[in-house]
């Protein structure tokens, strides 16, 4: 009986955790997946871009992605399309989106594993 209680409690805890992780932030009841929907038109659902003019987001550092979105907002980066999209995002939305795309498996790499310079 006690173990049943424990299991029920555990299930509740997991469910709460899942909901918390899925929280978009700004708009209550909106999951990060909902907030990410417009991004997918260019950056693709897997975060690797639908065409090569759009950057891969999958596997990028989350704090860099967040920084970039803030820069589009302030105008430190000038891009008409991105400026329009980030305008409606709260700081919490930006953080959630950055973590959402950064956590996806991607093809990005830093240059530490690659030779640079002349042969």
């Amino acid at each position, binding site marked *: 009986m006690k173990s049943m209680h424990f299991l029920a409690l555990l299930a509740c805890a997991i469910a709460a955790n899942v909901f918390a992780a899925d929280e978009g932030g700004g708009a209550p009841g909106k999951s990060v997946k909902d907030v990410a929907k417009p991004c997918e038109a260019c950056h693709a659902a897997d975060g690797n871009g639908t*065409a090569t003019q759009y950057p891969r987001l999958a596997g990028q*550092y989350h704090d860099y992605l967040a920084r970039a979105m803030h820069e589009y907002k302030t105008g430190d*980066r*000038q*891009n008409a399309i991105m400026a329009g999209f980030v305008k409606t995002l709260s700081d919490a939305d930006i953080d959630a989106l950055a973590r959402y795309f950064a956590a996806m498996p991607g*093809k990005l790499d*830093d240059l*530490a594993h690659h030779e640079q310079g*002349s042969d």
Partner: protein
Amino acid sequence: MPRIACRFALLAAFLFAVSAHAEDDLKAGKELVYTCGGCHGVTGYKNAYPNYHVPRIGGQNYDYLVAALTEYKKGERAHPTMRAQGEGMSDQDIRNIAAYLSSLKP
């Protein structure tokens, strides 16, 4: 007749695209990328003020890399170090760098 013209236009566009890309020089790009390694080649390296990771650029998409570097060059992105780097790059340098970086695989 319009169909043939359309096909010809497509072929011309295709050939142009291929030749434009063929002008990119991977070897020249690799040499230029030596400078990038100072920040982008150190795993976990962070920008100082404000504090955030410098991006992973290996394997990034070609056309986006060209656009991003061109924006730094033209001053449309504020980051001071990257602006300084961009100002020193020709359009061909930028395409060579993008060709090399986009060719990398993890």
